[in-house]
């Protein structure tokens, strides 16, 4: 199978966010593979182990994203591609990213493309479905189970807590939801091997696209932090009194019950 996984470098979930000069400050922050993309990489590796073939991980980003791609290679992916458009494209939105990824994939004959259902930074969840649409292939989002048999595919999809079983076929793009699998930690031999695995770096000029084709459709005007919450009220007294007081406050003061 010809398997692709889309990977984004994101802030670690434990990071606090601060803003300097109107942008999210990256000073000293730890970066990881977007956790949902990690499920995608794990599932890609399991598919290859079961059906044979090759896993290629792709990321759009700056040079720093090489680290996350190496991690994916250490987990077991075979090849990595970093599309670095930093020098050519000023603004990247979901439209831009999807155009670039789809252009790269258009002649690759992918059997299956896996991605996270959402990135924990931007949080829009658009790129996966947009790429599938541009490639003219079907997609299923937020999957928690995947079974491939020949070209037949059975997927279980999380729909706001309900589970939907879907039958479809390859070629296909799926986006991973939590619960799909338990991503492995890279082993030490895996990390050693990853250093020698191919990591191709492409620039915008290597694609069949003009800058006008990928011009962002949206623009971020401002970034800000939520207002700090004022300290709340800790109730006192016997447990029974506290519970009763709480219900009273929620009813008459907060008016939420």
């Amino acid at each position: 199978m010809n398997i692709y996984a889309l990977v984004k470098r994101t802030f670690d979930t434990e990071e606090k966010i601060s803003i300097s000069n109107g942008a999210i400050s990256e000073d000293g922050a730890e970066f990881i593979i977007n956790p949902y993309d990690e499920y995608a990489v794990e599932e890609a590796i399991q598919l290859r182990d079961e059906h044979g073939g090759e896993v290629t991980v792709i990321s759009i980003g700056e040079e720093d994203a090489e680290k996350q791609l190496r991690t994916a290679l250490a987990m077991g992916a075979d090849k990595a591609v970093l599309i670095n458009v930093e020098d050519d494209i000023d603004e990247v939105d979901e439209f831009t990213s999807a155009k670039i990824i789809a252009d790269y994939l258009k002649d690759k004959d992918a059997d299956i493309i896996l991605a996270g259902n959402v990135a924990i930074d931007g949080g829009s969840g658009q790129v996966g479905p947009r790429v599938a649409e541009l490639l003219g292939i079907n997609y299923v989002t937020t999957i928690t189970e995947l079974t491939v048999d020949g070209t037949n595919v059975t997927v279980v999809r999380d729909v706001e807590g309900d589970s939907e079983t879907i039958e479809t076929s390859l070629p296909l793009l799926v986006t991973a939801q939590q619960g799909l699998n338990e991503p492995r930690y890279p082993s030490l031999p895996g990390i050693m091997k990853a250093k020698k695995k191919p990591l191709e770096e492409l620039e915008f000029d290597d694609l069949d696209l003009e800058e006008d084709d990928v011009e962002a459709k949206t623009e971020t005007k401002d970034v800000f932090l939520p207002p700090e919450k004022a300290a709340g009220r800790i109730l006192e007294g016997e447990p029974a009194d506290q519970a009763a007081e709480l219900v009273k406050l929620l009813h008459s003061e907060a008016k939420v019950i």
Partner: protein
Amino acid sequence: MSKKILVLGEARDGELRNVSFETVAAAKKISCGGEVVAVLIGDQVQSLGEEMIHYGADRVVTVEHPHLKHYTSDGYGQAFMAVYEDESPEGIVFGHTAMGKDLSPKIASKLASGLISDVTKIGGEGDDAEFIRPIYSGKAFEKVEIKEGLLFISIRPNNIEPLEHDASRTGDVSAKSVEITNLRSVIKDVVRKSTEGVDLSEAKVIVAGGRGVKGTEGFEPLKELANLLGGAVGASRGACDADYCDYSLQIGQTGKVVTPDLYIAAGISGAIQHVAGMSNSKVIVAINKDPEANIFKIADYGIVGDIFEIIPIMIEEIKKLKAS
């Protein structure tokens, strides 16, 4: 300039979801007096049209087909695009629900348009409208604009107030016939797992448990409290990782991001990854044995105590309140 806006209503179990009315309110804000046309797609949705009018839509177009009983991106995509082509609107508003998240990028890609997802607030009106959306799961926010072309947004449920219901409003509800063909996904089975049908993203009240619930049975009093308040049960990553509950209940930066009117955190310490998923709730209650727990820093009301002692008393008190 006035704009014609298409909104996509959403039915569940034969009833319109509240987010449908919220899309109408959002559309009114950006339409500058232009027409707001609601689209309803399904196997039986004609009878729901009037309700969209009562909530402020000017006109409704329904697309009914047996193949539209279940949502698929192909089926609903074909139905929506057929209406889009008839109407040529200047804007589109979807709910940022499971369906909206799945369908909106497909439509945006077909139309080569921008899309602002998961909008929680619209500032300004008409051409000056600004869209606020959370990033980093609510650890920060961004203000975004569409640079040119179609104004396409999806709105997070439970954040934009619907307009007042007005049963005297009238408007045209027309049916459009669309051939639905070549569906590449076939829904074989749907298993309901969510609590009492209240979805976390739309719940007005959420009672969430953490490691402090100590086990699967520990969720029972939380469920009782949630049901009593017409709410849903959620969980922290700790509780999910410990197998106390299904991952579909997880709230946090990985998991669901929620903004209910009332969030009751029971036995949750308040790790930053959890807080990102719920800190924008309107009222937060924390119940935890550890007075130093992080969750108290963001709680409006806190009780330092044992959830298994406090919650049953709360349940009794709420029952009394309801009876009075």
